[in-house]
């Protein structure tokens, strides 16, 4: 056994080990604190690069249309199904709760306001975050690790304009439309679930449910989903285009896209609901 091996096996003395560990532990704490700030900083820089690319020609209309189809048309069945399920659940729960308090006549309004103002937007956002966020994050991450994004850039095409801006804009434009679809399915199935138990014509349901309703009650909650779209598209594109580490990195990007987009979407909802209540009383 050589002198180098003996030294390596024995390791440094305990006091030196403590000295080695302390800077390492300190650095770990610093990294843990600085990490989120660094992430937000990089996200901000990425957002600015996308905005700058999006507003300068040449515009990628063909890719935008393709993404509108990818985000909108292909998410529609899943969103509609989710909306329909939510409508049934709210119908069953609302009927039970309202019956206990002798307020069955409020059922149509309860269902309408619950679906359109609360559940429709958030369920649509979370479903799209899962489907579109994961898909976008994984697709762009795969392109990143196989140098396809570098190839786009080397072909004198701005990848922020072609890949990120089109996807983010598609999410912003499609989320409100998908929310309307989810709302419609939720109201239809909610009414149907109620009508199976007690006679309630659709005309009665609509008249009663929307009685006294104003645009302020329904449009802001629907269009706030455009902010959800921005969050989903931005985080998915950022995670994908900054991937490292091969297949593991692609998986991590897909997972992080969904988790972070869902988290920020829920947090944004808290802020947006308050904002809507103040600005659109």
């Amino acid at each position, binding site marked *: 056994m050589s002198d180098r091996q003996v030294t390596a096996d024995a390791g440094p003395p305990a006091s030196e080990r403590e000295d080695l560990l302390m800077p390492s532990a300190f650095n770990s704490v610093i990294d843990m604190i600085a990490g989120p700030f660094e992430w937000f900083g990089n996200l901000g820089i990425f957002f600015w690069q996308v905005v700058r690319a999006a507003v300068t020609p040449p515009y990628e209309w063909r890719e935008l249309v393709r993404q509108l189809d990818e985000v909108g048309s292909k998410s529609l069945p899943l969103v509609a199904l989710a909306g329909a399920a939510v409508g049934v659940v709210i119908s069953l729960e609302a009927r039970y709760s309202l019956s206990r308090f002798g307020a069955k006549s409020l059922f149509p309004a309860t269902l309408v306001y619950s679906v359109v103002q609360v559940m429709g937007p958030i369920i649509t956002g979370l479903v799209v975050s899962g489907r579109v966020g994961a898909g976008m994050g994984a697709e762009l991450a795969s392109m990143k690790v*196989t140098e396809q994004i570098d190839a786009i850039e*080397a*072909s*004198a095409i701005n990848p922020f304009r072609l890949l990120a801006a089109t996807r983010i804009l598609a999410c912003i434009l499609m989320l409100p439309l998908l929310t309307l679809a989810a709302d419609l399915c939720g109201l239809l199935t909610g009414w149907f679930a109620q009508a199976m138990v007690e006679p309630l014509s659709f005309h009665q349901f609509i008249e009663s449910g929307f009685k006294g309703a104003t645009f302020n009650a329904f449009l802001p909650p629907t269009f706030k989903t455009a902010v959800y779209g921005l969050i989903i598209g931005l985080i998915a594109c950022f995670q994908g285009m900054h991937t490292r580490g091969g297949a593991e990195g692609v998986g991590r990007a897909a997972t992080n896209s969904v988790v972070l987009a869902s988290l920020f979407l829920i947090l944004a909802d808290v802020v947006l609901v308050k904002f809507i209540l103040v600005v659109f009383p």
Partner: protein
Amino acid sequence: MTATYDISAKQGEAKEDGRLRVVAVDNLHKSFGSNHVLEGISLSVCSGETMAVLGRSGTGKSVLLRLIIGLDKPDSGSVCIHGQDLAGLTLDQIGAIRIKMGFLFQHAALYDSLTVAENVAFPLQHHRREMSRSEQSDRVRQLLAEVGMDGNLDKMPSDISGGMQKRVGLARALALEPEILLLDEPTAGLDPISSGEINDLVLTLQREHHMASIVVTHDLHSARTIANRLALLDEGRVVIEGKFEDLEQSDIPFVREFLKQS
């Protein structure tokens, strides 16, 4: 080997022995963490000239190409294309320079959701919008025929071999008729006949289109065939630069060992 330089009317451009210097790399340094990949690389390429960059694996040859096309930024030093320093340019400004350049990646980097023909058409669709669809199709067929891939138009990249992907990548790099061509291992994975065809293509481009090329390669035979000058890198520095005969006559031990093992 000596060269005469004079500054032309265009700021930053220079002529070397009467030819325009299109790529000028000056004292480039690049590190990734504690790994110092390039430590003071300087070289230049003139129009109509092919330079081969040789060296052991991991000496920064591919990094050098990435710095020249601006995919990475150097830690220090400068890269000038047609006299224009890439430092401080925006992405769109660099894009205006990249239009005149073609880049072949080491692993081809084909767009895996597009067919072979669509891959080659991609730059044309974005930068040659004045061309009609049929003109673009004709140009794509012509390019793929030049690299011997005209029978695989509708295949996906995953359906063809690595060598075939490399040839499609070369066709895509030539789509916009670049003035400067950067090739990262163009003959890697190709059989000798295909390698010869690629070499002939590079020579034709050099002779007929005065295209400047920088070729990173391990294939010494290919380098000797196509290159006017060769640069041998070791530990991030240029050990020797000149014609093949200069390398053969060199007394530098690393050079002699490299030629002996190739």
